[in-house]
């Protein structure tokens, strides 16, 4: 039977995965110190060690978690999410939308049909925005990389602050009643009444979705991960320890707005930016400033704004960027203050 193969293979791979992951550090040390026979402690050796250890670690984490995320996501279609959000009161709606933004499959190329599908079936504008902010900002690649390179605490902080920003910003946009800044044709378009029956999926189909997600996402981001970690590895060995303190350290009050200002037009996916941020922190950048920089790069991207221009008038796009950027700065200052 088909499902046998689909279920047995991951079960067999799991222990292999675990053993490799568990012994990655000794394997790395062994291949560098013994096989290559490099001298310990030199800049080159430590840069290489950083790369050879982090690269497989991050890729293995990505493959494993994206596999499960792919399976979980097969339960959350945009259609189902819309059904949940229809007719919800604003605040509850904002919270739900932001959380659903994490689990619903989202790609910026689908932002327009998604926006139209939400707004026209009566999901309030502010609630739709909560979704649109959370979906790209809190994506699985960002969270996995944060977990891999900083540990679960930072990953959790990122998720919680991202959610807070998405909920609050969406709620504020809803309160401001900006519906007149949505392009006029949006509310005139009628969506068709195609039947909404969900695809019936067997467990083996969902597992296949998991495989496909791994193939698609890891196939796309590995190169960014490699470049990000290579830059990180170079800086790890060659950049002086306190290099970033004056620029992105806690005491530099201007560092937070500056990071956001630089981060918004910068467009990179999470896979490339997290390894670089990990080195910024190692070299003395503070957590709040780095978090703000990362959120600005990942959460607000120029290509997505250009896509959204089709359905939103410019003042609404600017308000949207302004409110989210403001939220990110508050997070930055807050974390610099606490830690």
């Amino acid at each position, binding site marked *: 039977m088909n499902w046998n193969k689909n279920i047995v293979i991951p079960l067999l791979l799991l222990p292999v995965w675990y053993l490799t992951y568990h012994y990655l550090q000794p394997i790395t040390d062994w291949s560098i110190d013994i096989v290559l026979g490099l001298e310990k402690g030199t800049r080159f050796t430590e840069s290489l060690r950083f790369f050879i250890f982090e690269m497989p670690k991050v890729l293995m984490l990505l493959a494993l978690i994206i596999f499960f995320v792919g399976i979980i996501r097969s339960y959350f*279609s945009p259609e189902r999410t819309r059904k949940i959000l229809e007719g919800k009161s604003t605040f509850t709606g904002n919270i739900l939308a932001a959380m659903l933004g994490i689990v619903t499959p989202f*790609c910026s*190329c689908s932002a327009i*049909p998604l926006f139209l599908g939400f707004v026209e079936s009566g999901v309030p504008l502010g609630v739709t925005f909560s979704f649109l902010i959370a979906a790209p900002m809190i994506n699985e690649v960002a969270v996995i990389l944060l977990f891999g390179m900083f540990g679960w605490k930072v990953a959790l902080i990122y998720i919680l602050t991202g959610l807070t920003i998405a909920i609050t910003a969406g709620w504020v946009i809803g309160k401001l009643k900006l519906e007149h800044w949505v392009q006029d044709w949006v509310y005139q378009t009628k969506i068709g009444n*195609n039947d909404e029956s969900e695809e019936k999926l067997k467990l083996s189909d969902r597992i296949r979705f998991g495989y496909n997600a791994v193939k698609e996402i890891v196939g796309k981001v590995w190169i960014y991960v490699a470049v990000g970690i290579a830059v990180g590895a170079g800086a790890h060995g060659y950049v002086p320890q306190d290099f970033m303190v004056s620029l992105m350290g806690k005491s530099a009050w201007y560092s937070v707005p500056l990071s956001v200002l630089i981060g918004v037009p910068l467009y990179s996916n999470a896979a490339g930016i997290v390894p670089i941020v990990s080195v910024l922190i190692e070299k003395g950048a503070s957590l709040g400033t780095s978090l703000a920089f990362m959120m600005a790069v990942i959460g607000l991207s120029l290509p997505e704004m250009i896509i959204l221009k*089709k359905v939103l008038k410019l003042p609404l796009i600017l308000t949207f960027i302004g409110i989210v950027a403001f939220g990110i700065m508050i997070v930055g200052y807050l974390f610099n203050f606490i830690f």
Partner: protein
Amino acid sequence: MDIKILGSGCAKCKTLEKLTREVVEQNGFNATITKVEDIVDIMKYNIMSTPALVVNEKVEIKGRIPSADEIKQVLSKY
């Protein structure tokens, strides 16, 4: 049969179109394939994630790229 590929020009939509054409050609299905790129037309099918495969006005697959086998299975029903 009348096949439509819905998608506003993203990479995935092009992949789906190419794949569908290949399947139709290889299996000798008698079909016309049209690409629907206008967002207003796409919304008539009430889908929220592209690309989508529509056969005789029925949405068969949405939001993902199916395998060639799956497309073949879907088309065989018509």
